[in-house]
């Protein structure tokens, strides 16, 4: 008898432990009625909860347990302009749109590029940066010198990314990753991948970190990264567009961009280059 109770007590004690420490994990499930003054429908009162994968250095990644990067800082600047507290979170890229639609956070600020297909399900703000889709190959490889050479090669990309769509146009042999960094890493392993298509900046960051890879040719296209929102959040879209306009006008944008890339990412000569949308 006594022994049986000790087991049940142990279970009960565990339950208490959870109740104690689980409470700070509790998120407000009350999505209606927050941000009433502003008319925004926010997950948490007075906070802009924005998501990224957290696996996309230098745009969004974690350093010493803190989420940081260009996207994260732009998100914070946007939130502050709207009088909200920034609350960046991470969620896996493959399901990021579903999570947005399921109202697990307010918006995506995670280098999501505008595409027609995505625009059917979500609304996009004005672009907050331009980047090029670039081919990267192993350091010693000279097989691939241009996009034409990708025919039939094995290409690594992140699932559900714009690079994924591009890769499928060149080959049937596409390998999927949940992080561009892991894909780039695989270029350095003999015989795993012939090429990776990702954003130029992301590849350059990896090269700077000592990864033995190189870029090939010119960017394949220019894409526009924008904030993604649920279709019904029309006021929020206006608020965000206004905030983007303001941070560009008052120099906050340029400051953040220079800090990360030593140039202004919005200053791109779009002449004669294919713009993806």
């Amino acid at each position: 008898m006594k022994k049986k109770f000790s087991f049940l007590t142990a279970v009960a004690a565990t339950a208490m432990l959870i109740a104690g420490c689980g409470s700070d994990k509790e998120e407000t499930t009350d999505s209606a009625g927050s941000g009433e003054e502003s008319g925004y429908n926010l997950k948490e009162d007075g906070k802009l909860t924005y998501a990224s994968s957290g696996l996309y250095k230098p745009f969004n990644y974690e350093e010493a347990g803190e989420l940081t990067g260009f996207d994260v800082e732009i998100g914070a600047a946007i939130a502050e302009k709207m009088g909200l507290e920034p609350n960046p979170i991470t969620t896996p890229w493959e399901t990021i749109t579903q999570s947005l639609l399921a109202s697990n956070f307010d918006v995506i600020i995670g280098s999501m590029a505008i595409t027609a297909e995505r625009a059917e399900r979500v609304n996009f703000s004005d672009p907050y940066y331009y980047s090029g889709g670039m081919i990267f190959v192993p350091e010693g490889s000279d097989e691939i010198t241009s996009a034409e050479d990708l025919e039939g090669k094995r290409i690594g990309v992140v699932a559900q990314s714009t690079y994924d769509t591009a890769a499928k146009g060149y080959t049937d042999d596409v390998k999927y990753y949940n992080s561009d960094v892991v894909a780039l890493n695989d270029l350095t392993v003999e015989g795993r991948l012939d090429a990776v298509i990702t954003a130029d900046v992301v590849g350059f960051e990896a090269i700077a970190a000592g990864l033995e890879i190189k870029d090939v040719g010119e960017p394949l296209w220019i894409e526009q990264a924008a904030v993604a929102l649920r279709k019904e959040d029309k006021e929020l879209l206006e608020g965000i567009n206004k905030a983007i306009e303001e941070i560009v006008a008052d120099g906050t944008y340029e400051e953040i961009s220079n800090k990360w890339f030593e140039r202004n990412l919005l200053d791109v000569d779009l002449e004669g280059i294919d713009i993806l949308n």
Partner: protein
Amino acid sequence: MELLKTVVEVFLRTYPGFLEATLTTLQITAVALVLGTSLGLIFALMKISRSKILQTIANLYITIIRGTPLIVQIMFLYFGITTLIVLSGFWAGAIALGIHNGAYIAEIFRGAIQGIDKGQREASSSLGMTRTQSMRRIVFPQALKRSIPPLGNQFIITLKDSSLVYIIGVSELFSIANREAAQSFQSLETYLVVGVYYLVLVMIFTYLLKLYENKLNVDK
């Protein structure tokens, strides 16, 4: 040797984040175990009850849960349930893990209860006990003792399976490892380090279980 050096470097750099994530991993595991054990007990009793309906419900639950992958169940709960109630990733993951475990734990309990010699039950009824009384006082305490080793095993599986909830964005050990690897480009070392974290947790768990088993003197 070079690898050892970088592994130590990665360990020293990552431990603040990993320790925090360890707590999350343990919390998810704890919720899943409490929920799983409760469900397991309920469904085990349903399965051995005399009611055909209860038996059918229990069989259905166990069949469905054991026949589908945990990661599918996690996704289903996270995206499926949100149309009814909004669950944070933490709770969705922990509940999915709990429901998943309930099916396995139900089978453990059922096996242990049915494994108790029929003579025990006959003896208690000849002492004038009702079916419920003999279950509560005679059969179940013995069955519980017998279920400790397989339960412990299931607990360890749960702890390791909790890594799957990274897919819905919970910052537990494995997802922190993914982020660390993405940040530092040191995949091999990072996953080696996170593996050690799991190993140590499982070893602590095993040790505690041993203590408890000895206290209960299972093999006597």
